[in-house]
């Protein structure tokens, strides 16, 4: 516990801010992308942008789980609800995401549909076990961070021989989207703040392609000192033109990651093509249930197909996620799209770039 307090230390933070100012060259610009919703929120909550030199730009990449979930995947939830009398179990963040017709799970809930918020995937299995006469679908979204717990819920449902529990397996993985970003000729990013929680599971390996492509890569934790020191290391790498993956979150991240969690993922999932909002279909970037567990697969059991729609017309979330535009450049921002009445998913989740900009920067 004491550890975390030190990483919030204001004096340490201030000395890092001074070091960053001393290190940057005025004539250069430094574009740094975070690919983790928790980083997005930390950066705003601690006011980190406001203490950085003007030519250090922080961009939010495709790191917010709700935001990258494609419109088709969202719509499939509504399709299942329309088709069958079923209970949908979801993480809180998804409740306000609008479907293509504008309605959200929160709206459906007030119309009497059975939609419940769970805090962890294992709760979902407990609920299903307690109500054997009802069918339950867990909406499984997130990256490598949530995937192990979702895999564990499937294993647990199998062990308990539950046949009233199903999973919408929407989990996505980082390596392929990183590759996508690197291949994007419009991408204007010099370094990446690599997601700490994802790295706990995956280890360092998934970032090796970044330095190979002359991008700085620092794995960062979530406290102000973590983030500031990581930004400093990124700037060092850029200034010296020496790129490598640096693990600046070694108190939580091991080089090889969490082997047990990785094994669990292998046990339950198989790599498949996933659709990312605003990005499109990426091969091998999704985690689908494998043969052994396919009887839990809600898409198969209820025969729905996440329609190809990857975005919502009028919403520029996809461009935000690729760092092409800042949320404020979307004409809907604050004007038809607010956290109370979001039009696109980047305004829904606390971790969404649009929501974070709306809430924390005036």
């Amino acid at each position, binding site marked *: 516990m004491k550890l975390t*307090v030190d990483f919030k230390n*204001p004096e340490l933070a201030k000395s890092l801010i001074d070091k960053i100012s001393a290190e940057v060259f005025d004539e250069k610009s430094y574009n740094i992308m975070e690919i983790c919703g928790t980083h997005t929120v930390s950066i705003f*909550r*601690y006011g980190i942008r406001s203490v950085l030199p003007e030519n250090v730009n922080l961009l939010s990449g495709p790191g917010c789980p709700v935001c990258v979930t494609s419109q088709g995947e969202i719509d499939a939830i509504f399709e299942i609800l329309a088709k069958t009398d079923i209970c949908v179990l979801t993480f809180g*963040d998804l409740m306000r995401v609008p479907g293509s017709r504008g309605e959200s799970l*929160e709206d459906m809930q007030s119309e009497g549909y059975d939609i419940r918020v769970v*805090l962890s995937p294992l709760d979902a299995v407990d609920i299903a076990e307690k109500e054997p006469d009802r069918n339950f679908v867990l909406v499984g979204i997130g990256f490598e961070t949530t995937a192990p717990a979702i895999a564990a819920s499937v294993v647990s449902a199998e062990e308990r021989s539950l046949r009233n529990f199903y999973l919408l397996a929407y989990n996505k993985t980082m390596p392929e989207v990183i590759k996508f970003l690197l291949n994007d000729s419009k991408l204007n990013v010099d370094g990446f703040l690599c997601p700490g929680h994802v790295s706990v599971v995956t280890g360092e390996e998934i970032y090796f392609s970044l330095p190979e492509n002359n991008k700085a890569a620092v794995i960062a934790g979530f406290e*102000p000192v973590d983030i*500031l020191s990581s930004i400093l290391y990124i700037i060092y790498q850029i200034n010296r033109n020496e790129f490598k993956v640096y693990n600046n979150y070694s108190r939580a991240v091991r080089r090889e990651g969490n082997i047990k969690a990785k094994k669990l993922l292998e046990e339950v999932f198989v790599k498949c093509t996933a659709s990312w909002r605003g990005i499109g279909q990426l091969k091998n970037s999704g985690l689908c249930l494998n043969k052994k567990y396919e009887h839990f697969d809600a898409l198969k059991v209820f025969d729905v197909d996440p329609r190809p729609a990857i975005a919502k017309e009028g919403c520029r979330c996809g461009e935000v996620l690729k760092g092409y535009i800042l949320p404020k450049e979307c004409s809907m921002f604050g004007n038809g799209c607010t956290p109370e009445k979001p039009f696109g998913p980047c305004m829904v989740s606390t971790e969404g770039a649009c929501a974070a900009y709306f809430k*924390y920067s005036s």
Partner: protein
Amino acid sequence: MNMKKITMAHGSGGKATNDLIKNLIVENFSGSILGNLGDSAYINLCGDLAFSSDSFVVQPEFFPGGDIGELSVYGTCNDLAVSGAVPMYLSFSLILPNGYIMDDLEKIVKSAAKAADEVGIEVVCGDTKVINSHSSNTPIINTAGIGVMGASLNDYSKIKPGDKVILTSDIARHGMAIFSARKELELENSIQSDCGNLYSIFEKTGYDGIKFSRDATRGGVAAVLHEISDKISAGFYLYENMIPIQEDVVYLCEFLGFDPLVVANEGVAVIISEAKKAQKILNKIRQTKMGRNASIVGEVYETNNVVMETKIGGVRTVEMPSGDLLPRIC
């Protein structure tokens, strides 16, 4: 064991209702006005009055640091207290789910009675109804209170740049206690709700130098400051390092993805005071049990927004909470 339960008969107006009222309600709330059981309570008051009402729906109804009974009394009394009134008389109405366990109801009524005694407010009337347990499986309580005005603390026009903002206690405890009481989180929870009597603070401080105050319940401190800044041409500048908050509350908020400033409190008042008198007021607040963690957290400033200087010297906008708090994916 044969547990006594609430039945539809307890809300029918017949003997069962009468027995419940006599044996449980009148028995626990002392006071002759209530004991009279007339169709109205006769009360005698002079001067300017404050009148406030609130309904309480809390799940679970017993939470670390309190229960819906005391909450329903403190809640309305706190509204009176922060409005500058001395809480005098209270109504107490129960809407009970069919099948609710009598022992639990008794606990709730007893703790409401204890809270009323502590505040010094007299419960003078009330009502009991029973509803189908499908509609709610925990009791719903409505209370309405009347108080005699000591000072008006609701006048926006008094607020001027330079005034100080005082929080009377550490924040976000109630909201996080309720969350941690949910068994799914499986927390060994040490977070206790701050549910308590804010009148005790004003009893100590009096009203000298206090320009405005408000109870920071749902929506937390952030909602209160935003509501005020919407009504005035000025805004608020806060200092994160001055905001009192328990360490375990910080961790749970971070874990769930909440900004503590938007989390509910049940024992925190936001007080806006004259700058010169702020320290003196603070010293007095700190002498009370409710206010020992009070702090001056910022000031009113010219710009019409709510911002906070963070611990590392950054500046950010304080979010206006929107809707229910939904925990993030974790």
